[in-house]
């Protein structure tokens, strides 16, 4: 469904991604794990085209998307829930959610999508008229995910959804991601929380210093000695 071929990305003189190739198949949860500054976020930003300084090919549903504008990528149904939520703090929760359905593709079904999001995230309905800037960390992440779902995504990319959240909230978020997949949305999850994301994933990639080091199914990697040593501290 999504294919990255030999992506090389630069930030000034520094090469952030080195020959990264990976793919996500329809219906999968694929996770990319790695330490801080390993290039995970850059990879997602390249796919969303908010970072444009890269070489290589990105294909989504058999067609190249690596020269589109960010809004055109969204129009294809390839949606990102960004790191740090990036909500619109002075807009209400409801307005934030509605903007998730801004693309032509999802605009018509805005009302239905909103009902759907409220049904799986009832907290958001309670907070509908509150400014998004006043939400707690967990609620803000829920709102960001709800906003992503508003777009009726074919593939939903999460950039560090567990960042800065209490362990119990992290579990809640992971459960939510699992359910979103069940509804038919393909998931690409970028995480520092290695244990939780590997448990969830069908397949995983380990990225270090901008290079893909390992690739395998989630359970395998969770039990591999390298991952244990490097990321789980066992």
């Amino acid at each position, binding site marked *: 469904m999504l294919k990255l071929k030999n992506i090389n990305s630069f930030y000034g003189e520094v090469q952030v991604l080195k020959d990264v190739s990976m793919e996500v198949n329809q219906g999968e949860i694929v996770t990319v794990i790695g330490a801080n500054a390993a290039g995970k976020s850059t990879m997602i930003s390249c796919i*969303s085209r*908010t970072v444009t300084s890269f070489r290589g090919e990105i294909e989504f549903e058999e067609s190249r998307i690596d020269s589109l*504008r*960010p*809004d055109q990528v*969204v*129009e294809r149904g390839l*949606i*990102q829930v*960004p790191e740090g939520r*990036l*909500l*619109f*703090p*002075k*807009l209400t929760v409801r*307005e934030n959610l*509605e*903007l*998730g359905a*801004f*693309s032509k*593709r999802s*605009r018509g079904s805005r009302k239905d999508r909103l009902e759907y999001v409220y049904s799986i995230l009832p907290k958001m309905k309670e907070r509908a008229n509150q400014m998004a800037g006043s939400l707690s960390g967990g609620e803000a992440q829920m709102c960001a995910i709800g*906003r992503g779902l508003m*777009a009726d995504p074919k593939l939903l990319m999460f950039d560090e959804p567990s960042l800065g959240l209490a362990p119990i909230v992290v579990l809640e978020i992971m459960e939510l991601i699992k359910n979103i997949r069940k509804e038919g949305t393909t998931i690409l999850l970028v995480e520092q929380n290695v244990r939780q994301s590997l448990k969830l994933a069908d397949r995983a990639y380990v990225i270090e210093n901008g290079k893909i080091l390992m690739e395998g199914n989630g359970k395998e990697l969770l039990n591999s000695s390298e991952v244990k040593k490097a990321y789980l501290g066992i």
Partner: protein
Amino acid sequence: MEQVLQVLISGILSGGIYALASVGLALIFGVVGLVNFAHGEYLMLAMYIAYWIYNFSGLDPYQSLIINLAVMAVIGYITFKVIMERVLDSDHSIQMLLTLALSMVLQNLALMFWKADYRNIRIDMTNDTMNLGFLTFNTPRVLAFLIAIGASVLLYLYLQKTFTGAAMRAISQNGKAAQLMGINIKRTYGLAFVIGTTLVGLAGLLISPIYPAYPTVGASFSTLAFIVVVLGGLSSVPGAIFGGLVIGVVESLAGYFAGPAYQQAAYFLLFILVLVFKPNGLFGRS
């Protein structure tokens, strides 16, 4: 007492125009992040357009309103496409130098084509007055005030109640996130710029029956609009409306109590006080 009231309301009437001349600046700054020093020049252009249409066809500024606004929108669009779009990602200092240069170019083009003469539009209504109880007001000023406040409020409602309006507010709060929502940023920037220049153009054509057009008429309004926008908290449209009214009243009262020479001094003083004590504007929170 009567006189003070007359002066006060007269200040509010001017304030409405100042508000309209400023909301576009606040919108462009808030959404596009562009400090547009050429803002007032669009007011000047609209005044000349009103003048030339009146001269050639006899249509007064109210009759030619739609044509004038359409021309202003086109001029705004061309400015955006040809000039502003190229510097959207540039440093603020580059953008400022560019808009400053644009302002000088437009002023001097006006000087070259239309000379420095004051161009007045004298229509029947120019000297009409209307009575409100014991107070008397110049009809074009009342009309200008009503249309100006109406247009400013419409802009506010557009931003608050429509989906594109929400997209503009979203961009002003987080441009990257707005892109991830599927908002075409450049197109929305262009729209905000066109709306901004058209609104300041509307202010220009509304004052054209009572105020002469000349090449640097926009410059004084530019300065005023910057003060108004700073008072209102930079990117806030309701703040700019309120700020415009405050400046109008301050100017008018200062003229009455201290003398006309102190009008500008009074609002510059207010401006300095606000910058020192409430740098985020009268409404702004730190």
